[in-house]
């Protein structure tokens, strides 16, 4: 395997495949290396795939890709122990072309996507671990795999090796994570007949719904839970920062079972059959955790570059866009025949000029704020529930008096000054 390629892409998730596909489509010789039995066998996400960034790579992909349901409704639940305050949006414009986003199951989807790359000429090798980047005079010139004589060379190596990115660490581009920079998330796929899903979520065939759950869904810890509808199954999962999990001495699967048996959730999945259980880390450090993304002969994309917007649960789209930007950079570098750090730094410029880093920058202090101020999840969600209960319970109390009572109970619990401070701090973190 001592051949030389234009590009070696490590990993066959959305970032790696977007990059490999785009490079091959533009005539470059691409080797893509995946450690799993097939693309998708190691990859996990809650399940939302965004149309816009996928379409920029494969136009009208929804006509052939293995998708579950187009999402027409996004709900948000502020959950207490025996109650929930809900809001959301349902719009039929999301149910027709060009759609907004879809639920997907990653194992079938990633296999399909990687196959599209192969059709463009990508040489895909599975069941192969990249052990390290081969570095010569500070320049990445190839990779060493766990195959016999497994050294391969290329002008550029793209690290799409996911959240743990051992290769990014080998190069010294990232330090080891702190436990507050990653969310440990566990989920189950639960099979349910299509008709039951449609009835329980108020959907028709080919309409999907997502629910993001805050508050008691994580027992008040920093994190969220989610319920997404597939065609004939439901993805239900919960995650908190690893640091919160450690601090609260929580077993992640116990938290998942707590969610599944929660009185507000249980009726949605009642009678379902568990089909798979999955655990994964999400890089949630945001803007401050983004590593060096371009070097001499090397680029980092997707989760390996920590490109996740935790507030908006966006990740797969950032992975795809970053993969495409990396590919465009490599194509230009190839034209100049210059793969030095300064030439490849164009990728960094593209990334920082796009929605990806702009959005991460917008929320750069959010995680930190919420981690250090547990009252948002611990106190305010139950408070909202009590206020709603009080306000909507008809008991002969005049409404104006009710309002005053609610305000008094909120400021009484935390103190007026604290409440103002909390509101200001939260606004600052997400503005």
């Amino acid at each position, binding site marked *: 395997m001592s051949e030389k390629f234009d590009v070696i892409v490590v990993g066959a998730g959305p970032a790696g495949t977007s990059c490999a596909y785009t490079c091959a489509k533009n005539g470059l010789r691409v080797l893509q290396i995946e*450690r*799993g*039995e097939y693309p*998708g*066998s*190691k*990859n*996990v*996400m809650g*399940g939302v795939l965004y149309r816009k960034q996928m379409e920029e790579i494969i136009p009208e992909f929804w006509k052939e890709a293995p998708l579950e349901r187009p999402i027409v409704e996004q709900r948000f639940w502020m959950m207490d122990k025996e109650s929930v305050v809900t809001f959301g949006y349902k719009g039929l414009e999301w149910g027709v072309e060009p759609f907004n986003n879809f639920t997907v*199951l*990653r*194992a*079938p989807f990633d296999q399909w996507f990687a196959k599209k790359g192969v059709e463009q000429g990508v040489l895909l090798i*599975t*069941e*192969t*671990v990249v052990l390290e980047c081969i570095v010569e005079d500070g320049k990445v010139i190839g990779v060493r*795999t*766990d*195959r016999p004589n497994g050294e391969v060379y290329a002008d550029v190596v793209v690290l799409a090796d996911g*959240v*743990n990115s*051992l290769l990014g660490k080998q190069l010294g581009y990232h330090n*080891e*994570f*702190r*436990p507050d920079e*990653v969310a*440990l998330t*566990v*989920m*189950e*796929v*639960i099979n349910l007949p299509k008709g039951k899903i449609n009835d329980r979520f108020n959907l028709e065939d080919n309409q999907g719904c997502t629910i993001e759950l805050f508050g008691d869904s994580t027992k008040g810890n920093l994190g969220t839970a989610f319920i997404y509808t597939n065609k004939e*199954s439901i*993805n239900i999962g919960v995650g908190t920062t*690893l640091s919160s*999990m*450690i601090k609260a*001495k*929580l*077993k*992640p*699967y116990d938290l998942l*079972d707590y969610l*599944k048996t929660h009185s507000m959730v249980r009726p949605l*999945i009642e009678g*379902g*059959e*568990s*089909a*798979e*259980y*999955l*655990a*994964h*880390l999400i890089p949630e450090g945001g803007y401050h955790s983004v590593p060096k993304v371009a070097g001499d002969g090397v680029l980092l994309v997707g989760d390996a570059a920590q490109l996740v917007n935790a507030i908006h649960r966006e990740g797969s789209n950032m992975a795809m866009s970053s993969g495409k930007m990396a590919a465009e950079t490599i194509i230009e570098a190839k034209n100049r025949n210059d793969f030095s750090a300064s030439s490849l730094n164009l990728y960094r410029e593209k990334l920082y000029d796009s929605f990806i880093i702009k959005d991460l920058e917008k929320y750069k202090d959010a995680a930190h704020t919420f981690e250090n101020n547990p009252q948002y999840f611990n106190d305010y969600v139950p408070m909202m529930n009590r206020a709603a209960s009080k306000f909507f319970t008809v008991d002969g109390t005049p409404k104006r008096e009710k309002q005053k009572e609610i305000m008094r109970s909120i400021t009484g619990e935390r103190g007026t000054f604290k409440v103002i401070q909390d509101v200001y701090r939260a606004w600052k973190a997400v503005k």
Partner: protein
Amino acid sequence: MSTKTIEEKQYLIRFKADTKSHLTVLDHDVCMTQCPDKLCTIFCPAEVYKWEGLRMQVGYEGCHECGSCRIGCPYQNIKWEYPKGGHGIVFRLA
């Protein structure tokens, strides 16, 4: 039925276990003498780590390869690698 225990959850998954562990506890004495909470036995989502009185039992065959133990071990006492190519967990769905 939807699962109730971690054993039932793990039973749903396909694993192609390597003969050699990709997870190594570097120094069992550290677990024994410095880590009263044995945190990895709590937060590991697959219950890979079990404390057996004197040393840490590592059931690497059921590992999800998430990376939590490497990051969460307060003593950086876990060497974490990927299983050999084609081995380890094989997700079939999500």
